[in-house]
């Protein structure tokens, strides 16, 4: 599948992830050891009133469900794009509400634009709006991804 084959405006459900006290603390001990991310007792005294996930944990999980979704697509015989996703960056990351233990977020992606990338003419840039919502549809996190996708040769 090439950049040209990807439809704009179609939302895909990537997958879900449950944030637990265990995985919140494990991530944060390594990467974001602030009291409200690593210590349930200290977090009670914080402005959040309890333990919350690091925003970078919420962000990294998007990549996890994205890669898992794609791997499952390939395993089911569907055509996918090139093997590795490269990206020049992301925009407008919004951590809209704290993610607490027990929250399950479902991540979605919806491509909305394609752009040329003059220095890499074999590739184009796919821009997508990505969201993470709980079971009630409440939005917790959103951002705009930009991923290089190979163009149809010739």
């Amino acid at each position, binding site marked *: 599948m090439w950049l040209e084959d990807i439809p704009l405006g179609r939302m895909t459900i990537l997958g879900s992830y449950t944030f637990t006290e265990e995985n919140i603390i494990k991530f944060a001990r390594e990467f974001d*050891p*602030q009291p409200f991310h690593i210590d349930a007792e200290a977090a009670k005294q*914080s402005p*959040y009133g309890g333990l*919350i996930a690091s925003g970078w944990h919420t962000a*990294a999980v998007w990549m996890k469900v994205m890669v898992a979704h794609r791997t499952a697509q390939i395993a089911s015989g569907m055509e996918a794009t090139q*093997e590795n996703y490269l990206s020049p*960056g992301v925009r407008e990351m*919004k951590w809209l509400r704290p993610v607490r233990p027990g929250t399950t977020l479902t991540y979605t992606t919806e491509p909305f634009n394609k752009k040329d990338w003059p220095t890499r003419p074999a590739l184009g840039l796919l821009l997508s709006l990505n969201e993470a919502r709980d079971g009630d549809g409440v939005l917790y996190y959103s951002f705009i991804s930009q991923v290089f996708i190979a163009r149809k040769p010739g």
Partner: protein
Amino acid sequence: MSEPLCFEDFVVGRKFSFGDHVISEKEIIEFAKEYDPQPMHIDPVAAKNDLMGGLIASGWHLCALAMRLIKDGLFHDTTSLGSPGVDKVQWRRPVRPNDHLTMEAEVLEARYSKSKPDRGIVRFRFDLFRIDASGTRQLAITYTSPVMIRKKNV
């Protein structure tokens, strides 16, 4: 670190240099196996034939590592009250095993919170640099983000 920094310390234009971390192949692969299991991040052999010409760290890993360096080198336990998001992340250069990582931060804006008297909002630019074995120093990632910072004696 001595006295924890607070809102009043983050004057517009002030710059900070901190952080000292050598990233190993093992930690690149460990992060990626959990959050970003693409060949270029987990398989040194397959990565050699890829566009990037060898194993590179996941961009999300670099964001998470930058957070860790910020927590250890700039923010004390009581400095940050979290962040509502990130305006823009740019992944400029790949980071490879055994690269030496350092950080710079610059205060772009600082204002009092309108709704919460205990804090101000400081917009930072955070830069993560890689220094490779030859001593070449390159900007690896850069991002701008507003962070809620506790005011002095509140």
